[in-house]
């Protein structure tokens, strides 16, 4: 696979038409809405979007209004990848029969963490195994936010949600977050990337690479949610950036299975002393408030330990071990 040389300038991007418009009814300071806007700015031509049930489906198409300027299909929680496969197969058949006016039409599937980590993983696994040519974008806000903040497979250890509440005995969610991007790498698909809304240029380039990939591409975007993570609406980008700086959400991509750290994370591999402690990241969010009680202090150390463990494993995969 060839990597794109596309380097968007800010001016070029702001002058490009909005395909995901204003007037959607996401909460003030919504992280996923920023991710969708940025991904739609990276499209290269005619695009069909399909959206699993989730926050972004609900807020963007409240009858009779739609915030989409592209053909858009809503589907259930579990089958957005199956839907994207069908669209791609239909486009292929129409092209073969000479009934397609366009040279190329891109297919993007959007889903939240509930529709990917938990409910949609079977359809996703099947679609990438069949090798359909589409970009799957996971916007990860770490719980089922639109139904009332229930824990998902993506909710991090120690977070309090309505179905994993923190109490006197239990410090929020007991399990750890599923490493979904690594699971997708294990499917041996041509392109997997993680991105953060705090670094728009990196995100746009990765989205474009995903679209240009022949075959399935998967993108995991870190999108803080003010409502569910319980922080002030103005801090969305700050927390997204802190996620990268603490290495709880490192940015990397794999091209044909080869791991590559992105520059925003590489700096912490080269200068480990600049990597921030996880407690600052946890402190900003009230879903982790209980961890600062003396009783649960040890949970913060556990989280830090797990973050370091995963970070070191990633460095090994990228051939960037800290001892070098």
């Amino acid at each position, binding site marked *: 696979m060839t990597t794109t040389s596309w380097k968007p300038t800010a001016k070029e991007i702001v002058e490009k038409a909005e395909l995901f418009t204003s007037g959607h009814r996401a909460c003030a300071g919504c992280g996923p809405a920023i991710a969708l806007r940025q991904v739609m700015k990276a499209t290269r031509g005619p695009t069909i979007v399909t959206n699993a049930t989730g926050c972004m489906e609900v807020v963007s198409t409240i009858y009779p209004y739609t915030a989409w300027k592209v053909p858009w299909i809503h589907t259930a929680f579990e089958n957005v990848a199956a839907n994207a496969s069908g669209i791609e197969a239909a486009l292929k058949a129409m092209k073969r029969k000479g009934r397609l006016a366009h040279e190329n039409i891109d297919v993007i599937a959007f889903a939240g963490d509930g529709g990917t980590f938990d409910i949609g993983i079977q359809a996703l696994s099947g679609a990438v195994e069949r090798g359909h040519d589409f970009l799957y974008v996971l916007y990860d806000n770490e719980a089922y936010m639109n139904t009332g903040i229930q824990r998902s497979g993506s909710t991090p250890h120690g977070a309090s949600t309505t179905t994993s509440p923190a109490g006197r005995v239990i410090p929020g969610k007991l399990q750890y977050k599923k490493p979904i991007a690594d699971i997708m790498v294990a499917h041996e698909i041509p392109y997997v990337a993680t991105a953060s809304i*705090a670094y728009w240029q990196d995100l746009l380039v990765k989205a474009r690479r995903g679209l240009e990939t022949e075959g399935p591409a998967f993108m995991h975007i870190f999108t803080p949610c003010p409502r569910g993570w319980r922080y002030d609406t103005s801090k969305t980008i700050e927390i997204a950036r802190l996620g990268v700086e603490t290495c709880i959400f490192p940015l990397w991509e794999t091209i044909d299975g080869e791991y590559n750290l992105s520059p925003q994370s590489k700096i912490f591999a080269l200068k480990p002393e600049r990597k921030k402690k996880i407690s600052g990241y946890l402190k900003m969010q009230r879903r982790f408030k209980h961890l600062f009680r003396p009783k649960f202090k040890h949970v913060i150390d556990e989280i830090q330990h797990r973050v370091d463990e995963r970070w070191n494993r990633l460095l090994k995969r990228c051939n960037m071990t800290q001892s070098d």
Partner: protein
Amino acid sequence: MNKTLKGWKDIPIAGVCWKPATQYLTGDWKTFKPIHDAEKCTKCLLCPMICPDSAIKWNQTNEEIEFDYDFCKGCGICANECPADAIKMVREGGE
């Protein structure tokens, strides 16, 4: 009674959203309003990139940043992130 029921050809096709969301103004949600200081602004174009509501626009003709208060929900991300400190949040409706 059956005569009053509509047949399947008469009812609208299910779930087709036909009005653009830009007709639905979300600007009245806000408590705080961003005020842009053109003097301090370096036009780095970060704010239109990170606005969740596409409410910060780049005017190509006069090369200025413009706020669309019809859609701005007043989240304050732009004011928090502005590297030149050119955006301030003030309470809607004055003091």
